[in-house]
């Protein structure tokens, strides 16, 4: 009897313990959205929500702050990085899931995943001391010198060939997001039933035809979800981009020249923010970044869920 009471009391306490901690997690998430919003409220109020987003001036001296250059910078760098990384990341996924013996596939998969395990600051470090000088000396400057004589109109598009800027950041970003799209694509390709491949082989298809006509279409949901997740990573990536992009918020951006993203401007200016308005503007950018990540993640989640639901139906 006592034993049983003890058990029941224990159950109640245990459940409450879990509920309180679980509730704390919910509270943290809610509080986070709220704090970013209310932290940015001053800026949103001062410039207006639309005005803050659309304004492209960012001037601490004049007290003018707008999110547009950073929004644009985030969208451009992420989109470019995604475009560059898509083919190699899909190629790696196909190689692992289709073209290599399992032992080799496992090694390649491990190495690709290792790209995600390396800290962002290490990418930044290599970016500063390897990629930037390389790009500057072997690509940007030769190209720039060529443009001076042959195509002067290109110069404003190219921007200063210092190595520090958009191009370097985008290249590093492309490398960093590869594991995210590649691993989901790989999983999706591995889930394609053998019967599907065999049915195509039985029609007299070559290996590539099986991949292109059966495997990739069948796995397209997972491949696309991986792309969206990689996009989410690219949007939020902070340190490597901050270290390489040059932190210039002067529009228009150029190919070689400095730029900034939402994450990089926060990383760069938050501890040095002078005055409440700049601080609030940075928090407001944080809030916008929060919304953007949320949106992208919900899209990825929706696709993944639809994909698994579709498989359930068969």
């Amino acid at each position, binding site marked *: 009897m006592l034993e049983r009471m003890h058990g029941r009391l224990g159950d109640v306490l245990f459940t409450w313990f879990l509920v309180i901690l679980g509730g704390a997690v919910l509270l943290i998430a809610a509080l986070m959205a709220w704090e970013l919003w209310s932290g940015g409220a001053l800026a949103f109020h001062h410039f207006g929500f639309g005005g803050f987003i659309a304004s492209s001036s960012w001037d601490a001296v004049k007290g003018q702050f707008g999110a547009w250059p950073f929004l644009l910078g985030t969208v451009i760098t992420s989109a470019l990085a995604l475009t560059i990384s898509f083919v190699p990341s899909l190629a790696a996924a196909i190689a692992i899931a289709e073209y290599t013996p399992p032992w080799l596939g496992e090694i390649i998969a491990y190495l690709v995943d290792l790209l995600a395990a390396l800290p962002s600051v290490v990418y930044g470090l290599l970016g500063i001391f390897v990629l930037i000088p390389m790009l500057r000396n072997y690509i940007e400057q030769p190209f720039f010198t060529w443009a001076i004589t042959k195509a002067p109109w290109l110069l404003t598009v190219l921007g200063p060939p210092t190595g520090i800027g958009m191009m370097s950041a985008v290249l590093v970003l492309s490398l960093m997001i590869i594991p995210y799209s590649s691993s989901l694509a790989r999983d999706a390709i591995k889930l394609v039933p053998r*019967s*599907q491949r065999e049915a195509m082989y039985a*029609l*007299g298809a070559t290996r590539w035809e099986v991949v292109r006509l059966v495997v990739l279409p*069948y796995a397209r949901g997972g491949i696309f979800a991986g792309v969206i997740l990689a996009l989410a990573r690219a949007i939020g990536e902070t340190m490597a981009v901050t270290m390489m992009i040059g932190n210039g918020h002067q529009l228009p951006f150029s190919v070689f020249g400095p730029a900034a993203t939402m994450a990089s401007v926060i990383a760069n200016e938050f501890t040095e923010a002078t005055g409440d308005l700049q601080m609030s503007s940075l928090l407001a950018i944080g809030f916008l970044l929060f919304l953007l990540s949320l949106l992208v993640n919900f899209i990825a989640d929706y696709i993944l869920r639809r994909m698994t639901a579709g498989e359930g139906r068969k």
Partner: protein
Amino acid sequence: MENVRMETKEVTVFYGQKAGVSSVSLPMYDKKITALIGPSGCGKTTYLRALNRMHDLNPIVRIEGEVLLDGENIYAADKDPVVIRRRVGMVFQRPTPFPTMSIFNNVVAGLKLVGVNNRDKLMEVAERSLKQAALWDEVKDRLSEPAVGLSGGQQQRISIARALAVEPEVLLMDEPTSALDPISTQAIEDLLATLKEEVTIVIVTHNMQQAARVSDYTAFFLNGDMIEYGPTDKIFTNPTDERTEAYITGRFG
């Protein structure tokens, strides 16, 4: 006397060191249905897949002996598995419609591989194959809908139509009705009777009644060996080997 369309001579299929099928010699007569029967695990599917080089896809499988198609060994050095598989089509245990393709594109998938893109030609072939597969009337108004929306029996007939569209000389069927309900099974059995007027059929089944109903010749497999082969009536009424008799009378398997 009928022609031999396809023939195996002492075919042995090795999985690594282990033989899945040992030294099977069988003729397959032109425009006849040959049934391969036997308890599960007896090697009949393994044997069937040796007939269109499906085992090539698995690196640990090795094949000895000869598989002759119109007198030529399909495993000869100058033979290409891609070409062989067009001449020897296959239908699998479960329906395998390509989920991202419409009914129409499923049926003509094999033709598109070889670069046939003429819409009229494709339409003509699709209609012919779907009629052969006794499916035309059911799907002619929704050719552009996804094939996965069809019932299991219809999906299996799509798979058959798809295999027929490339006009194979031989059609291999691996337990084509085992995943289907009785009515769909009936439909496919009826279909076989008309199909054999145009194509040589080899069918694996572990449903003995089915073999008795549809086939002209039957081969009985047990533990990787081909025990007995002969005209279907003879195998089912007067088998020579006592193991065959034991199987068809239901004493094991």
